[in-house]
């Protein structure tokens, strides 16, 4: 992989992370936040992919360690997404709406 190529992929990754972070901060809907988180995650995995390809410079097909880690990372991100979606669904079931912003941010009743 040439330097220009890796720079291109790096920039793509940065853009993904940036878009994701923007969504995470600005979007009030939890579902969109979850999607944004996945975008950021993809950006990070892409960077890891670029890092893995650097092994090619040494005549190897690629560095196997990042690939193994990326797969693990994807699994973790998938579980996180599943958990978050499950929470959103349950929140929707109990309140009829799914929002992160309680009317009053403090003073939740205690059990």
């Amino acid at each position, binding site marked *: 992989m040439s330097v220009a190529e890796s720079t291109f992929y790096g920039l793509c990754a940065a853009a993904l*992370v940036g878009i994701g*972070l923007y969504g*995470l901060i600005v979007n009030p809907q*939890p579902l969109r*936040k*979850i999607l944004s*988180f996945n975008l*950021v*995650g993809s950006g*990070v995995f892409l*960077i*890891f992919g*670029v*890092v893995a390809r*650097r092994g090619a410079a040494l005549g190897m097909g690629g*560095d196997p*360690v*990042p690939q193994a*880690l990326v797969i*693990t*990372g994807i699994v*973790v991100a998938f*579980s*996180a997404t599943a*958990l*978050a979606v499950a*929470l*959103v669904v*349950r*929140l929707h079931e*109990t*309140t009829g709406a799914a*929002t*992160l912003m*309680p009317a009053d*941010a*403090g*003073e*939740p*009743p*205690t*059990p």
Partner: protein
Amino acid sequence: MNTLPTLLPEATSAGGYLLVLALVLPFVGVLAALTLGGRHARAVAMLALPLGLVLSLAIVVEAVRSGQTLVYLLGGWAPPLGIALRADGLSAVMLLTTAVILLAVACFAHADFAAPAAGGEARRPFMFWTLLLAMWGSLNTVFLAGDLFTLYVALELLGFAGVPLVCLEERPETLQAALRYLLFALIGSVLYMLGAVLLYGAYGTLDIARLATLVRPEPAAFAAAALMTVGLLAKTALFPLHLWLPPAHAGAPAAASAVLSALTVKGSFFLVIRLWLDVMPGIVTPAAGQLLAACGAAAIFVGNVVALRQKRLKLLIAYSTVAQIGYLFLMFPLAAGLSALQLPTAPAVTGGMLQAISHATAKAAMFMGAGLIYSTLGHDRIADLRGVGRQLPMTMLAFALGGVALIGLPPSGGFMAKWLLLAAALTTGQWWWVVVLVLGGLLTSFYVFIVLVRAMAAVDVPLTPKIVVPRHREAVVLALAGLSFLLGCVALLPLDVVQIGRPALLPAGLQ
């Protein structure tokens, strides 16, 4: 670099198998609970936790006996290809603390989360006990893992176990609190991972011991340090990143709050220590240390003042956690300052760890005590606590002892921590942290005093409890509080366990 212990070649040490057992036991418990189902989850946990306590004691004894870090190489493969488990003094004491607190919480929760008789739905106890075991397993992984990626996975597991604990009650507010917690923690972990990826890209390894020898001051390392630190701070809920903590900790059931406040936040804090003192002491600068501790100081001030204004006991305790987390971060500039003077960093590091352990035991006791007060009164409004002292004398004593530990009066662990941190601050001339330590203790004493005075006020008619709390549940709370109260007596031990396997001086850099 001559102060670093020589790590390569590395081999499994004599008691290394204990580390694997400590890692595997909780997860075997989780699997067993999953297989056997909700009716037996409690039995599984009650069987595994005492075993875990024995195991962590064995690890501490082994570490003290050998006087160095315990290592286990998985499959005999040494890093960078393989994965190493390591337990230095820091890990050993945290393993022990975790086992003790979880066992106490389990004894406390025994009655709350019993499987219903006669075949009712056992979802709640099933969730609680399985999550408790999962929490334990992920904490042990955090304490033992030797590389940054395993730590990432452990950190995520910790979050996945903690989030459902917040919303066990399934009320809308707790679901919302859990979702906020999860999403904010996810931002934190993704930043952490980005940092880890950058480090791998620059140095080709994620093993902590190897990284420590390879890291050089260059942009990739700087970016990684900043990203990983902030990611971990978000998970530790250090001010100003504490938005998720108060509703989550105040809304969870008492036993869950105790675990979340005492242990979960300490997991990511532990990683900050690893990162700053073990992975990249040569990267982080004094300015960064001051910044970190400044966040801590702000946490102490704002957390304590806001705690003082709370009307509900559990929220007060949750805000007190926000403040106490701040104390933990005062150790970093102090360790750096000592290191710059070519002095051992032991006072700062041991002080910080004592603070963490003292807070863990005291806060677990206080949250469980608040739970007992809630079930006795049917509410936890601080203004209406009158008469509780008569009804729950042991709980209020526990609350007082825990409060003493939080304020930092002798002979509590909080006092010992304060003494060591003060000494470090004065030795290094950083008197402003002295002001923070003193002011924080005073602010803490105000709310402890208010709660105690309200609860101990005499009543003409003894109040009629909603539920009569059994004595043994009070005794568990008192025992844990007593532990935090007497923790300062560790100073009487001939040996500083925390320092086992740690270099006396930090390598150049954090100066």
